[in-house]
C-alpha cells in the first residue's frame, strides 16, 4: 500500500511538472506570415502619372506643379494645410499651460536652438516653398511642396537656404510624372538629417535606414520585411500616426508596436507580464546609432573661435565634426546604450520666454512625464542630448540667437561670429527682452528611441537589468526590481542570522569534539 502511494505521488509530481513545462503556448507561425504578407505587399499605383497630358509639359516654377496636382486631387491641399508637417505646430493641452499651440515656432531645442529668425535655412525641411523670415505664404496652397514627399524618381532635392525651393537642377517634369506613395527616402531626407547633419538629432533615424540590413532594423531591412515608414506610421488623409516628443506633448495618436504585435506577443508569460511596465523598445532596441555616430553633446560656449580670422572645423577619426567655429564643440557616440525613463505619453516643453529659476541642475527642455506608480507609464529607451547653450542670467531666459543670414553685418552668428549681436538681434526677432548679459547653461533634451529594432535573439537579456552592478535600469529607483534591489534591513537580519547560526553550530561542534577527545585520552 505504501509503495503504491509512493509511486502515485511521484507520478503525479512528474505529470504536473510536465504539464507546466509543456504549457507554454507555441506561436502560430502562420501569424507572422500573414503579418509580413499584409505589410510587405507592394503598393500598386492606381494611375501612371506619366500618362497624364497635364504633367507632360515644362514647369516654370514648383508652384505650377502643385497647381496641377490640386487640379485633380482637389481636396488634398486642405488636409495638408491642417497637418503638422505644414504648420510646424499643433494645438495641445499641456498641464499648467492650458491649450496652446506648440511647435517649432515657440519651442527651443539644444541643437540649433530654434527656427525663429532662421527660417530660410530651416525651411529646407518644410513641405512648402518660399518661407521667409516671417513664414509668409503659409496660407497659399500652391506653396505646398507635394514632390518632396511623393517623388519616386529619387531626383528631387531642396536647395540650401532657399526657403524650401527645390534645387535649380531638378527636372520638375520628370518628378511630376513619377510621383507615388512616399518611400523611406522621402521621409528620411528630412527626418534623418535633423539638426544639420546625418543622425545629429535622433540617433535611431539616419542614412543607414534608407537601405538597412536586418542587423540595423528588422522591420525596414531590405533583406527582411522591407517595410516603409507608413507601415507603422499609418496615414489617413495626410495625418500620420506617431509623434516625436521633442515637440509633442499629449498622449494621443501614437504609433505603437502593439498595432501589429498585440500587447502579449511573447511565448513566455513572464515576458508578456513585463509589457505592463516596460515598452517593447526597451528590450528590443539594445543599442542605437548602430552604423553612424549620433551627436550626444553640444557646447555652444566655444563657438566663434577663428583661425587667422577664418572659421574652421576639427573632425574625429570617423569624420564627425568635433569643433565648428559656427556651432562650438561636439561629442558623438556610436552603438550607444540608451538611457531609460518612465513615460506616460505626456511631455512638457520649455517654450520661448519661459523663466528658468533653478540653474543648479541641467534644464530639461522636454520633460517626459511618468513614474512607476502611474499605471499609464512604461519604461522607454531615450537618447539624452546634453548641451551648453546661451542664457540670459538677468532675465533668466534661454537665448534664441540669430544664426543665419545671407549678408554680413546683420548680426548672424554664423556670419559675423559676434555672440552679443546674435543674442541681441535674435531676441528682438522673437520679441523678448535681452539684458545684454550673456552666459551659458547646461540643458538636456530627451529623444525616445523607437527605431533600429534588433532581432529577438539580440534583444536585451534579463540579467542586463536584473543585476546589482551596472543594471541598465540603475537610474530608475522608484520601484523594487528583483536581482537589482535589496532591502538593507532584510539583508542585515538575514545575513546576521546565517552567520550567527554558523558560528553557533561550529562552536558547539568544536566543544563536543574537544570533550570527546579528552575522554578518549582518559
Amino acid at each position, binding site marked *: 500500500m505504501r509503495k503504491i502511494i509512493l509511486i502515485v*505521488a511521484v507520478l503525479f509530481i512528474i505529470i*504536473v511538472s510536465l504539464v507546466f513545462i509543456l504549457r507554454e503556448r507555441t506561436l502560430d507561425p502562420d501569424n507572422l506570415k500573414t503579418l509580413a504578407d499584409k505589410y510587405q505587399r507592394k503598393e500598386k499605383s492606381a494611375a501612371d502619372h506619366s500618362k497624364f497630358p497635364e504633367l507632360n509639359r515644362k514647369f516654370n516654377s514648383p508652384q505650377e506643379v502643385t497647381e496641377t496636382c490640386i487640379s485633380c486631387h482637389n481636396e488634398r491641399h486642405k488636409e495638408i494645410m491642417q497637418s503638422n508637417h505644414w504648420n510646424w505646430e499643433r494645438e495641445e493641452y499641456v498641464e499648467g499651460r492650458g491649450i496652446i499651440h506648440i511647435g517649432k515656432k515657440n519651442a527651443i531645442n539644444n541643437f540649433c536652438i530654434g527656427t525663429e529668425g532662421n527660417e530660410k535655412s530651416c525651411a529646407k525641411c518644410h513641405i512648402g516653398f518660399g518661407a521667409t523670415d516671417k513664414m509668409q505664404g503659409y496660407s497659399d496652397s500652391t506653396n505646398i511642396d507635394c514632390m518632396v514627399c511623393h517623388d519616386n524618381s529619387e531626383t528631387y532635392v531642396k536647395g540650401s537656404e532657399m526657403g524650401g525651393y527645390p534645387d535649380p537642377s531638378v527636372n520638375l517634369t520628370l518628378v511630376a510624372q513619377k510621383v507615388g506613395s512616399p518611400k523611406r527616402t522621402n521621409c528620411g531626407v528630412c527626418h534623418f538629417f535633423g539638426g544639420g547633419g546625418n543622425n545629429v538629432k535622433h540617433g535611431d533615424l539616419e542614412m543607414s535606414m534608407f537601405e538597412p540590413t536586418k542587423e540595423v532594423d528588422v522591420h525596414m531591412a531590405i533583406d527582411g520585411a522591407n517595410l516603409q515608414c507608413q507601415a507603422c506610421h499609418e496615414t489617413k488623409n495626410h495625418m500620420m500616426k506617431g509623434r516625436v516628443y521633442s515637440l509633442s506633448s499629449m498622449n494621443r495618436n501614437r504609433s505603437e508596436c502593439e498595432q501589429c504585435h498585440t500587447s502579449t506577443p511573447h511565448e513566455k508569460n513572464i515576458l508578456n*507580464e513585463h509589457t505592463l511596465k516596460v515598452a517593447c523598445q526597451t528590450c528590443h532596441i539594445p543599442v542605437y546609432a548602430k552604423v553612424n555616430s549620433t551627436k550626444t553633446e553640444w557646447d555652444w560656449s566655444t563657438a566663434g573661435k577663428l583661425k587667422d580670422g577664418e572659421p574652421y572645423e576639427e573632425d574625429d577619426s570617423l569624420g564627425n565634426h568635433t569643433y565648428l567655429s559656427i556651432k562650438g564643440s561636439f561629442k558623438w557616440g556610436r552603438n550607444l546604450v540608451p538611457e531609460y525613463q518612465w513615460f506616460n505619453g505626456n511631455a512638457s516643453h520649455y517654450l520661448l520666454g519661459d523663466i528658468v529659476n533653478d540653474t543648479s541642475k541641467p534644464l530639461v527642455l522636454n520633460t517626459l512625464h511618468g513614474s512607476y506608480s502611474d499605471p499609464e507609464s512604461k519604461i522607454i529607451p531615450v537618447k539624452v542630448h546634453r548641451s551648453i547653450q546661451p542664457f540670459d542670467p538677468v532675465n533668466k531666459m534661454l537665448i534664441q540667437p540669430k544664426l543665419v543670414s545671407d549678408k554680413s553685418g546683420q548680426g548672424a552668428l554664423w556670419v559675423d561670429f559676434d555672440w552679443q549681436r546674435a543674442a541681441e538681434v535674435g531676441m528682438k526677432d522673437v520679441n523678448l527682452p535681452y539684458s545684454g548679459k550673456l552666459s551659458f547653461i547646461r540643458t538636456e533634451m530627451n529623444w525616445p528611441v523607437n527605431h533600429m529594432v534588433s532581432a529577438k535573439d539580440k534583444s536585451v537579456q534579463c540579467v542586463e537589468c536584473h543585476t546589482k552592478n551596472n543594471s541598465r535600469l540603475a537610474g530608475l529607483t522608484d520601484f523594487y526590481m528583483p536581482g537589482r534591489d*535589496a532591502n538593507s534591513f532584510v539583508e542585515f537580519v538575514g545575513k546576521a542570522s*546565517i552567520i*550567527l547560526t554558523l558560528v553557533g553550530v561550529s562552536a558547539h561542534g568544536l566543544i563536543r569534539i574537544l570533550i570527546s577527545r579528552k575522554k578518549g585520552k582518559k
Partner: protein
Amino acid sequence: MSRVVYIYKAFERFWHWMQALLIFFLAATGFEIHGTYKFFGYENAVAYHNYAAYALIILIVFAIFWHFSTGEWKQYLPTKKNLMAQANYYLFGIFKNAPHPTKKTVLSKLNPLQKLVYLGLKILVIPVMVISGLLYIYYRYPHQTNIEALSIESLAPVAVIHTLGAYFLVAFVISHLYLITTGETITSNLRAMITGYEEIEDNENLNEEIEKEKAIEEKKVESEKKLESEKKLETENNQKLIITD
C-alpha cells in the same frame, strides 16, 4: 540495551527528502534571482524556481493529507514538558555526555524543541513563503489577451518578506544539519531518515505504553460499537412497538 525500531514511514521519508531537495534547489535558484551570484542564468533561474515552487506546493498538499490521515499531526503539538530540560541538554548536558532528556518513541518522535521549531515552520514560515511566492508569481497574470495586475502598490513588501523567509530557512537548514549529529551516534539520525529504522535506547515501558494506547483505542472502538448497537436495538424496539400498536 537497545532495540531497532521502524520509526519513519516510507512516505514520511519520501516527503522529507523531496522537501529537502526542493528547498535546496529553491535556495540555489532563489538567491540567483536575488542577485547574490550568477550560475543558471537569470531567465533559467526564474523558470526553475517557479517549477520547483509548484512541485513543493504539490508535495505540501500530499504531506498535509498524510499528516491528517495518519494522525501524525499530533506529533507537532507543542508541549512545555521537558522544554527547558531539552534546551539545557543542548547547552550543557551534551558536553557532559548526559542522557537525552526526551526519549524517542514511535509515538513521540520529536523532542519539545523540535516540536516547537517544526510547528513554526509548518504554520508560519512555509505558509508565508508559499503565499508570498504565489503573489510574486501571480501579482501580474495574463487575462484573455491582456495582462492584468493585482492592485499591489509595489512588489517590495512581497519580495522583502519572501527574501527574509529565505534567509531564515537557510539558517534553519544549517542548524538542522548540525543538530542531526546529536543523536545516539553522529549518523544515527541521518541513517534513520534514510532507512526508516533507528536504534532506540531500550525503554522498558515502551511495549506497555504501546499496548496501553492500543487497549485504550480498542476500548473506545468497542464502546462506540456497543453504543451503536444499543441505539439500533432501541430504534428497532421502538419500531416494533409502533407496529404492534
